[in-house]
């Protein structure tokens, strides 16, 4: 007998029906959410995959990934055949066929060529910001978990972390704009008029006039945004290292720093890296903080082209994939010629985010399987 309860309680049958109804209803809601999510993904993949993949080897549309963004020209020739050419090829075509042969010309900004610039920009922004946030975040987490005793300072730090995590991304954008773009210190011979404070150093000036809209300003803004996430996650990984490891090390006469370096950090590192991969996805996905601090809609050169020194890469503006999608979505009306750029960019972007997230999940599972104390 499976369920003796049913024989004892009267009215079970009716309650069973009610339970079935509620279960179906709530289950239906749950699966509806999942269905909507899958439909969105499905639509993006359905429209984006044809741009990204192609039938012959290497099966990936390398042109789209490696070419720079250009204006797309769409026109008919005298035969009535429709051509879609990026600006550079269009000018070649025009010079070889003559201006009279072009009919019904239409242009679509940012829709021709590929998206090499945005991809490179996003990768640089993300890596730089995660590197900064990891350095400061892990150090802060070490302090919180290894050194700190309960006190007023720690209370303040925890409050700051909590509040920082809740600040809207657009406010981070405002903050980055006001601090990094307009007020951060630089070394310059001629301080600008709007400099907050210029300190003469003899050979040059230290002027608080900001880094301008640049890669480094955007990365710093993003780093501030993901800092609380990294601190919280790193602290958790550090706390997960058994207390015995520390006690054994200290008992052998190691100092606190030696203990941390040799017996705590190596075991917490996989966990920290896992969480940092997840914050990589967050940093890559945000648009609002980089709108005014780093991103630019159109740029002819990749970040490292046409700069004198390696430092020039940091002080130049970059294109970024989320900002590129924003520009394409807001400023360019959807048509059959822009869909390639729009859905293709979204597909590549989602693929990147998906890879980051999947990598963090896989890493987490492997770490969990390995680290058993």
């Amino acid at each position, binding site marked *: 007998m499976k369920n003796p309860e049913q024989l004892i*309680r009267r009215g079970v049958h009716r*309650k069973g029906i*009610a*339970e079935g109804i509620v*279960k179906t209803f709530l289950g239906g*809601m749950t699966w509806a*959410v*999942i269905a909507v*999510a899958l439909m*969105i993904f499905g*639509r*993006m993949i359905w429209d984006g995959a044809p741009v990204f993949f192609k039938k012959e080897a290497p099966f990936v549309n390398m042109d789209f990934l490696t070419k720079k963004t250009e204006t797309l020209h769409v026109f*008919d020739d*005298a035969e*009535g055949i*429709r051509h879609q050419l990026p600006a550079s090829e269009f000018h070649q075509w025009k010079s070889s066929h003559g201006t009279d042969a072009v*009919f*019904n010309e239409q242009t679509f900004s940012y829709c021709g060529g590929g998206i090499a610039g945005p991809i490179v920009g996003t990768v640089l922004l993300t890596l730089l910001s995660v590197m900064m946030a990891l350095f400061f*975040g892990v*150090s*802060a987490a070490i*302090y919180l978990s*290894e*050194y700190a005793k309960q006190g007023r*300072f720690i209370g303040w*730090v925890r409050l*700051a*972390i*909590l509040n*920082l995590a*809740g*600040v*809207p991304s*657009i*406010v981070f954008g*405002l*903050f980055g*704009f*006001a601090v990094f773009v307009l007020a951060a210190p630089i070394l310059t011979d001629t301080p600008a008029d709007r400099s907050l404070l210029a300190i003469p150093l003899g050979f040059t000036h230290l002027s608080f006039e900001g880094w301008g809209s640049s890669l480094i300003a955007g990365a710093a803004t993003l780093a501030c945004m993901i*800092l609380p996430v990294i601190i919280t996650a790193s602290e958790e990984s550090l706390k997960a290292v058994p207390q015995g490891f520390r006690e054994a090390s200290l008992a052998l006469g190691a*100092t606190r*720093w030696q203990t941390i370096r040799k017996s705590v950090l190596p075991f917490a590192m996989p966990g920290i890296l896992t969480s940092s991969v997840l914050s990589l*996805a967050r940093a*890559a*996905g945000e648009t*609002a903080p980089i709108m*005014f601090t780093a991103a630019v809609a159109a740029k002819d050169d990749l970040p490292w082209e046409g700069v004198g020194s390696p430092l020039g890469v940091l002080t130049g503006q970059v294109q970024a994939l*989320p900002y590129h*999608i*924003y520009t*394409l*979505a*807001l400023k360019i009306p*959807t048509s059959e010629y822009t869909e390639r750029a729009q*859905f293709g960019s*979204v597909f590549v*972007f*989602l693929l990147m*985010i998906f890879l980051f997230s999947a990598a963090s*999940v896989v890493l987490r599972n492997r770490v969990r399987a390995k680290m058993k104390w």
Partner: protein
Amino acid sequence: MPDTSHNPVPSGHPFCRRGRSTEGLIKAFFGGNAALTIVILVLIILFLLREGVGFFPEYRTELQNFRKSGLEFVDIARKDLTAHEQMGSLLNRAYFAQVNSNCREEMQRLEEATAIVNYLGEATAPAHDALVQVTDAESNSPPTPELLQKLSAQYRKRLADALSGRLGKGFPPTPHLSRTEQQLLCDQIAARDPLSTDDPAFANELQASLAAKRELSAAPLIAFRDAIDAFQSSSSALDVLVSETSDTVKATKEAAVLHGIQVRKRQTLLDAARTAKPDLRSQLEADIAAAVTTEPVDFTAAMAPVLARIPQFKEANAAMSAGLTEVSEKLPLSLSDEKADRYLKAFRAATPAMAAETADTVGLLEGWRADVPVGIGMTISGFISGRDWITGGEWQDIYGILPLFIGSLMISIIALAIAIPFGVGAAIYTNQLAGPRQQRFVKPTIEFLQAIPSVVLGFVGIAVLGTLLQEVSTLDSLSWIPGFPIQQRLNMFTAGCLLGLMAIPTIFTLSEDAINNVPAAFAEASDALGASKLQTIFRVIVPAAISGILAAVLLGLGRVIGETMVVLLVAGNRIQIPDFTDGIGTVFQPAHTLTGIIAQELGEVPFGSVHYRALFVVGILLFVIVLAINWTAQRLLRRFRISQH
């Protein structure tokens, strides 16, 4: 000082000192990094305040100028004019809704015929345009016969393709046209000369029949129409007056602004001259002498001709009041069409307010004084409760936060109305009712939703959802839903849907946690007392977890209010307080939001201007709102945790 008496190493020993100092340094280094979070938070607050605080005094100066130069005076009268216009448009909408209610069939037929004409026109447009281009009289070389032939062959081919429905999205659906009519229309277009763009005869016929039907249904409403026209023309005197006086005061303001700029320039030059080297000083002094070329504006004299027209304003105002009373008497009691009747009712409801506003205008105009200073309190309250956010105009920039705030609020309410049932329902289902296999699939999938970047969701809204909703709303079977068919593709509802989708994972994860944390003893005790599964869930577990669920909802709200990209792309970006006369249908109107305005305008404003500072004040407001929400949520969570132990 620590007690060193038990330390085996003497306190002065270098070993001890070195060890302690490096350890201390390392600790200080890590502690410094922890302090960085505080530094960042303080910097955020400081810089938001630094840029934002300057807003109110500067805005106050602008308002002072606004008053002194008389712009405010004209605005008093202009407000009546705008209200009058809105009332007129309300009546017009009622009138046309009533007229059109009888001609729905004809309108749909015409729409469908137009859709066919447009579809065929678009399909053949490339060839048509090419033909126009080569036959253009101004082109330098006449087209060769081969080219012409080629192009017209192309035209015919595309037309044939289009007629068989093979191009683009295919032949548009025409449920209200019969097959023969459709065929007739297609034949007429096919027979048309490639170069002509005239409408086919059948479309004109439909147009004529619609016009006839309209005339027919307008016939009983002639008195209504006349009343509306009389009402609208009753404001013409005031209209003329306002446009004439605004030219005068605008000139005053421009002169004042120019003078202000010159005075400031002179001050800068004076400062420079004080520190300049002697050889440069003479040059600077010449500049200083030439800096101010305009006389300071005599505001009283400039305002005199405007103030002299107050009697005329009085007359115009009286005419308008009379128009309002007259039209209220002549209006029909009710209209048969539901929508038209709602507009009429809205007009009636607004009439007393309008009458009162018109009545006290004269008093306001006469009591207006240019020399009353604008207080800082008035500036702040004007910012918080202002109903307009007008920037970039040549009249006067007005910063009022209400339309943005209401937009943010409406969108958040829509989003939560979607996210709460789905998020909490899914959490209850997953934790209590679903089997372990479903749990293993559902949880990571919904959490994965969180990873979708908001700009992608915004893109989905703009490229897919907006169009989809609009198409669905035109279905005849759904026309009973208020607000359908949707006028604007991008509106608060679309944005709310997407934001709801964004908030679901937050609400789901945290609510699921809260439910999971209810001690097993609660459920066991309930079971032991003979409660059914449902009773246990809804009377024991959910109430026990309710503060955690509330915290989840609040955190979801914080996420929704702070979200930027989706609302910027999808909400429609119209800075206006929604028109609530549409009832539930209000949600299908576009709106602008607190986050959206910062993202949209910060890139374009000059650094340090009043507008720039206004955006920082909006940022401060946003920061405070989200902080308050998160703080409440954290307190709820803490109380919840305490009640556990």
